[in-house]
Structure formats: C-alpha cells, structure tokens
C-alpha cells in the first residue's frame, strides 16, 4: 500500500553516510536551528506545565518558565472544580480506554490472521473492502449508528464507545497487524500443521507469541487515541457522572468562564500526562508504527 512499509531498521539507524561531509560550522548551525525550533515548539507546553504550579496572580505577570512561588493550589481547585471530581472522570476514561485496547487487540488480530494466513473464498474481496473502510470518513455512518445505539438504549452509556471495537471497526489496526503477520515465516505455520495443529492453535501458539511488538504498538495507539477522543464521548455521554476527562475539561472551560486559568491549565496538564508517560515509555514503538504504516497522528 505504501512505499514506506517495513522500514523499522532504517528508521532506527542513527546516522547516514550523507552526514560526514558537512563542515563543523555548518553542523553547529543546524544544531542551533533545530534547538531553536524545538524550543519554540515546546514553549507552549512548558508554559502550561509551569503555569499550573504558579499562584494565579503570577501566571500573567511574567513569561518566566520557573515559578517564583511553587504551589499545588491550582490542582486542588481544578480537581474539585466541577460537581463531579476529575478523579471520577479519569477513571471513566481509563475504563473506556482499557476496554477499547482489549477489543481492538482481540478482534483486529483475528481479522489480520484470517487475511494473512487462512485460505478461504472471498478473501481478496473482503480485504479490499477492509482497505476501503480505512479511507472512509466516519461521518457517513455517524447518524444511523447514533440512531441504532439510541434504539438499543446505549446512549449515555459507554457501550457505543466500546462495543464496536470488539468488532474490529478500527481497520487501521488490522492493516498494521497484517503488515506484521506477513513478516512471520510461513515455515512456522507449516511445521505446526505437520504436528496436527489447526488454525486456532497456530494463531495462539505460533502467531501471537511472535507478535508482541505489533500488539504493543496497537495497544499504545488504541489507548492514546481513545483517551484523547472527544467527538464520540461528546455525542454519546450526557451525564457528568459518565464524562471522560476530555469532556470534563471542556465543561470546565465553560464553568470557569476563563477566570481561573491556573486550575484550567492544571487539569489540562493532568489530562495530557498519561499520554506523555506512554510517549516516554514507548517512543520507539510509536515512531516505528507510524513509519511502517505511514498513517495517523
């Protein structure tokens, strides 16, 4: 599908032969430029974090990134700033995200296994349709889906956010896993068939144990995108007790009427924190995932 497929080793190489010919001056210049751009790009984020630890009157008094007076006051105000605490909404987000991870891993790996390893009539046809859904904007199915879930009585529950993921609705992850499964040597399947293993046993005992990298990539991306998702919770969750952290934060913007920036920035920092931690832990996996499929954020 893309020319950038299967490049993990290329991505990780830390230097290229192209690099040796630059003079030290030019090198220093490139470093200086990259550092300046990095600083400008990170400045808003650093400012957000540092402001969340400043007293309210200091936030707008100075552009300094180091708080003169360090306080957790903004976090205290923010945490209980709505009628339901942010802790509760974080748990809602966590529950939804974990269930989505489980659903995606199970259903997408099954589909990818069928597409790469099993022979059956119509395989090519279904595979083409699956690729087609990758490109299709969700808006085309949004309203009937909503009406269907409304009929099921699922609106204002987490069901519409979670159940579809158990039916491999995120074709992106099927695609990611297909790319990976194709790289697993077929001789391993054939050896297992010789030993009398059926498709299920090959899937569980041969393919899955060799697929931890792709499963981890899919898990981390699933978690982050679900944690970050705003549109689906906005449509499906109405009561504040059901809110995710993202919905809570957006409601908090209204509630504070922009008068308590400290609390707002503190809660913003907290909602980004889980993603930032996953980013630090799994940076390589995420970057390889993007380079191999060439998709999404």
């Amino acid at each position, binding site marked *: 599908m893309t020319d950038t497929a299967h490049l993990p080793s290329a991505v990780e190489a830390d230097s290229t032969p192209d690099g040796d010919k630059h003079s030290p001056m030019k090198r220093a210049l490139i470093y200086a430029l990259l550092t300046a751009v990095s600083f400008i790009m990170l400045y808003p*984020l650093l400012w957000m974090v540092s402001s969340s630890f400043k007293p309210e009157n200091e936030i707008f008094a100075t552009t300094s990134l180091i708080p003169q007076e360090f306080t957790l006051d903004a976090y205290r105000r923010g945490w209980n700033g709505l009628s339901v605490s942010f802790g509760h909404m974080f748990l809602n987000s966590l529950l939804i995200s974990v269930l989505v991870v489980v659903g995606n891993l199970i259903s997408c790996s*099954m589909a990818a296994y069928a597409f790469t390893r099993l022979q059956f009539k119509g395989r090519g046809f279904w595979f083409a349709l699956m690729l087609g859904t990758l490109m*299709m904007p969700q808006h085309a199915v949004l309203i009937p889906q909503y009406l269907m879930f409304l009929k099921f009585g699922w609106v204002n529950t987490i069901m519409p956010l979670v159940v579809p993921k158990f*039916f491999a609705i995120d074709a992106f992850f099927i695609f990611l896993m297909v790319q990976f499964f194709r790289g697993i040597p077929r001789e391993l399947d054939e050896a297992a068939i010789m030993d009398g293993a059926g498709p299920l046993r090959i899937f569980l005992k041969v393919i899955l144990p060799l697929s931890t990298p792709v499963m981890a990539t899919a898990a981390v991306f699933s978690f982050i995108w679900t944690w970050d998702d705003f549109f689906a919770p906005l449509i499906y969750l109405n009561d504040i007790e059901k809110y995710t952290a993202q919905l809570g934060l957006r409601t908090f913007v209204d509630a504070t009427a922009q008068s308590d920036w400290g609390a707002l920035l503190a*809660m*913003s920092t907290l909602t980004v924190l889980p993603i930032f931690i996953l980013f630090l832990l799994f940076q390589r996996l995420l970057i390889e995932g993007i380079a191999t499929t060439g998709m999404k954020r």
Partner: protein
Amino acid sequence: MSIADASNSKPPLSVRLRGQLGGYGFLLPWLLGFVVLTLGPAVSSFYLSLTDFGLMGSAKWIGAENYVRIASDDPRFWTAMKVTFTFVLLSVPLKLVFALAIAVALNKGLRGLTIFRAIFYLPSLIGGSVAIAVLWRQVFSGDGVLNQVLSALFGYEGPSWISNPSTSLYTLVLLAAWQFGSSMIIFLAGLRQIPTDMYEAASIDGASRRRQFIKITLPLLTPVIFFNAVILTIDAFKAFTSAFVVSDGSGGPIDSTLFYTLYLYQEAFTNFRFGYASALAWVLVVIIAFFTALSFMSAKYWVHYDD
C-alpha cells in the same frame, strides 16, 4: 500425518472445509462489524439524506430536497466550505513543508537525532486533545502568552487573536502546522530509502548540494510526499476538536471557525435535523473522495515510481 501424505494432490474435502470455516470463523467479528456498523449505516444514512427526519416522528421522503437546499439556500454551508477549504489549503502545505525541512535537517547524521525526533513528534501525538485546544485558546487570547512575549520583546500590544474573526482561523491553522511530526517521521523513513551511491555519483559529477536535493532527493521522495499529502488532506477535512473547543462549539466568532464537521455536528446533534445532516455528511464524503481521486489521477504527472 494424513495431511502430509496428501500433500502431492489437493487436500481432502474435510481439510478444505476446515480451512473455509477457520477463515470465516476468524473473520466473523470484523464481518459482523462491517455489515452492522459500516455497510448498513452507510446505506441507511444515504436513505436518511433523502428524507426530512428529526428526533420526533418518522422519516419523511423528500427526494433530493436536502441537497438542493444545501446548494442553493444555505449560507452557513458555504461559510463552512470556505472555512474548511481555507484551513485545508493552508494547513496541509505548511505541514508538508515543515515536515520535509526538518526531516532533511535531521537526516544529516547528527548526534541526538532520536531526541530531536521525539521532541518534534510530541505535538502530533497530543495536539488533538482538548487540553492543547484549551492551551491554544489561552496562548492566543488578548492577555495570552503570545501577546506577553510580543509586548516584552517588541513592545507591541497585540489583539485577541482568538476572538477576532479575521485571525481566529489562522490560529487553528498554526495549531495544525504545529503537529507536523508524524509526517516528518514518514519523510525520515523515506529519506533513508534513497541509495547513498546516487549522491556519491552526483558529487563526483560536481553537482552542488542544492542541485542534488532538487535532482535526487525531491524526485525520489515524491511517492512519500504524495502519500503524506493525501493523508493530511483527508485528516484536515475531518478536523473538529480544536475548532469546537476554541469556539465553545459555536464555530465563532461570527462563524469564522465553522469547520464543516462542526456544522455537521450542530445540525445533527444540536438541531437534531438528522435527514439534513446526513445529506451534509454525504456531501463531505463526496468532497473527500473527489480530492483523493484527483490526487491519484495527478500522481502520474509528478510522482516518480521506480522503473
């Protein structure tokens, strides 16, 4: 060992049947999801787009009337189109240029590449979240960080960029451009694919670095540029969260950030005009499909594929 014995002829029927069942067994969750959650709703939303249908009562068939109204009697639709196209046409090229420039700079064999790459990627990962939209709202507000910096450095007292209808959309373009990191990673992977002996041969022939970039790097990178452009364009048409948060869901000030998806959301879930919103959704699908097809057709004129 019966399977091995039969390996020189077709496998016995029971094995083939088992294969078919196994295949469809594993495909079942996806297949069910496809039929119930994608195919069915897609057909049904097309039907709804031909009806007058709200929260109460049943769908009333009105033929193409929704589409006629979109084209001829809906100023907000045209506003949304203008806002969305401005956003797409500005944010996609900006992202591509930043991503390519930084990727080329990072591909010089510098130490610390992984750190820079991580720093530039971070905004792409978190940029779609509500927190960043909230932050953006602060940064570009009247007493926000940008104006603080402008005032400290140049003594310039800036306006509120967010609440000024002539600048609000551009703050969102900047927010999108800030997230060039994932395209940059794809460019980096593409740059690594270019054989180094091509550059060596060019240097021997006395080609300057700039000439090498124009004659070797750019042409060989066109498939990746093409791919990034298509993906970014589709994503830009679908942008939603930042506009929603920055404008409190209104698309304001005076509809200056009324992204197409935001207008669609308002029609469907604020005004509960499900029929009309379905028609809007299909117009968006057609627009995206049209631009994707157009890019693929243009590809043969500028995208360089290996012979």
